[in-house]
């Protein structure tokens, strides 16, 4: 019997020959990420009464939520992190200008295939896009791992998701994941490692792989994984990571999976997650026409450069509907810069979008909140009540092109109505 990705990776991280699902190991993460909760980690370290860090080079801090600070309290918390990083030799410190931790750490070349990565953010499954085991933990666990270097981990069972492609026009990784979340439901993969395979995934862009792995959290996954390939290696080279700087891990062909799920990408249409749960998923035709007050293009799920390009392809030469707010929050400073350089930013601004500084923004309820009775269509990953302002407001989740089409129409709209089909294709 062969091993899954998770079994092999945790064997490596724990220094064990082999591990099996269900086994509990002491695993050494290669990277320990903390974001808005970093100040809590520092305060916890003070309680622990030690200042000795296992390895400052394994620590990364990114000030992505509530940035820049809007209260003296938050400003003080961020100051504490800034000073702690400087005094403790933490070189991977990214301040309020950088953007969302997940995207920043990947762009900066800190995330490499075969790593184990823990973070104070639940969407740390996103690192699976590069063949990494990433998962969320609490802030005290991060503190303890800063000091000890390891933490307990149960080797998870694995689920194999096979996606056959190509997708049809106007359909993206976001739609694939919403479909999967709707089918598996929000706890369908609790504590499992979700591996993505199939012809759709082979050769897929890293940006879309990030969307797949980010949203795996919404079926309760512990890890997500896309097998590294030439796309991964070329992407990493552009991030300054040499090919000999990492060791990729692949599951065995006879690995044991608790479940196998097949998705037929070719027949998939745009999907929308409706209020108030991410697994309340419907096809676009069932919700088209629903009026919205606000559209948010942001978050670690769908505010990468490629996402902005897709949104701009619909917004070009068009204008946001009267009375509707379109908020665009680029995932990182690098995304913002590329969007400026390529002219995508001008398209967004010309369409009537409000563009904010890079970071988590409205996804974390930081600006862009709603009044009672309002509706937002968002490209983020969660739509629970009260997450974006009033408890009596509603959030729909969809891809960047659905968001752009919806902003133009003022009601939830099918992006395929806007997209010019390639020569010779059948609508």
């Amino acid at each position: 019997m062969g091993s899954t990705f998770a079994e092999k990776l945790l064997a490596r991280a724990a220094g064990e020959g082999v591990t099996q699902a269900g086994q509990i190991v002491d695993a050494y993460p290669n990277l320990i990420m903390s974001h808005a909760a970093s100040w809590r980690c520092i305060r916890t370290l003070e309680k622990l009464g030690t200042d000795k860090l296992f390895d400052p080079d394994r620590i990364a801090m990114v000030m992505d939520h509530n940035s820049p600070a809007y209260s003296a309290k938050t400003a003080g918390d961020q100051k504490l992190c800034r000073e702690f990083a400087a005094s403790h030799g933490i070189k991977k410190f990214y301040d309020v200008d950088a953007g969302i931790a997940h995207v920043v750490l990947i762009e900066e070349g800190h995330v490499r295939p075969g790593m184990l990565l823990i973070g104070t953010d639940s969407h740390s499954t996103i690192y699976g896009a590069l063949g990494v085991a990433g998962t969320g933990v609490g802030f005290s666990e991060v503190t303890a791992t800063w000091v000890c270097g390891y933490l307990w981990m149960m080797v998870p069972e694995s689920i194999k998701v096979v996606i056959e492609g190509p997708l049809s026009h106007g359909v993206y990784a976001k739609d694939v994941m919403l479909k999967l979340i709707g089918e598996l439901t929000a706890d369908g993969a609790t504590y499992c490692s979700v591996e993505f395979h199939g012809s759709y995934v082979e050769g897929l862009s890293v940006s879309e792989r990030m969307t797949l792995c980010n949203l795996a959290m919404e079926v309760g996954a512990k890890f997500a994984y896309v097998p590294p390939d030439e796309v991964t290696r070329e992407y990493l080279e552009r991030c300054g990571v040499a090919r000999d700087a990492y060791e990729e891990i692949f599951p065995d062909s006879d690995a044991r999976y608790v479940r196998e799920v097949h998705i037929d990408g070719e027949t998939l249409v745009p999907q929308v997650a409706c209020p108030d749960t991410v697994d309340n998923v419907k096809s676009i035709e069932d919700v088209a026409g629903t009026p919205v007050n606000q559209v948010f293009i942001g978050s670690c799920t769908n505010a990468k450069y490629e996402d902005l390009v897709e949104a701009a392809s619909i917004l070009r030469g068009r204008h946001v509907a009267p009375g509707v707010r379109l908020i665009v929050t680029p995932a990182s400073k690098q995304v913002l810069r590329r969007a400026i350089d390529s002219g995508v930013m001008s398209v967004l601004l010309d369409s009537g979008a409000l563009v904010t500084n890079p970071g988590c923004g409205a996804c974390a309820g930081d600006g862009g909140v709603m009044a009672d009775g309002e509706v937002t269509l968002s490209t983020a990953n969660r739509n629970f009540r009260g997450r974006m302002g009033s408890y009596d407001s509603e959030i729909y989740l969809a891809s960047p092109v659905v968001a752009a089409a919806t902003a133009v129409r003022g009601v939830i709209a099918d992006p395929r109505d806007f997209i010019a089909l390639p020569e010779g294709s059948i609508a």
Partner: protein
Amino acid sequence: MKARGRCWKFGDNIPTDQMVRSDRAIGSMDDMRKHVLENLNPAFARDVQPGDILVAGRHFGQSSGRAVAPKALQATGIGGLVVDSAARLFYRNCYEIGLPLLQCPGITAGVDDGDILAVDFESGIITNERSNVSLQGEAIPPFLMDMLRAGGLIPMAGRLAEEEQ
């Protein structure tokens, strides 16, 4: 490790967002405690007594890690939680702060809000004193039981560090 008290029963798939709302997550712990689960049952934060048992359905604590959510529950003085199932990160966070959590598939079908429950976290046995029916929860791994007895991960790490010196 035991607890006995009133059962406060909640539903399935409750996200951390509804334990501590995002606008309150940056406030004081006292404020978070006073408003914990406010939109689902406003009486809970007001009337909960030390030792009471919070019972919930499937996938309790999904969504954001938001480690202040279990902390706010702990601050109410509850004796612990018994759930049909817990979200992975919420499960870890409870043990990390020393808040006993038992997974017992079927618990919500077997108890009603207001019942008096006696829970033995070591044996995993939950006794409903109203109906006199007992349920068997899933065993807590021994090292996590040690963590609970120590009061959480940080006190345990501190104790281990002292022993080493």
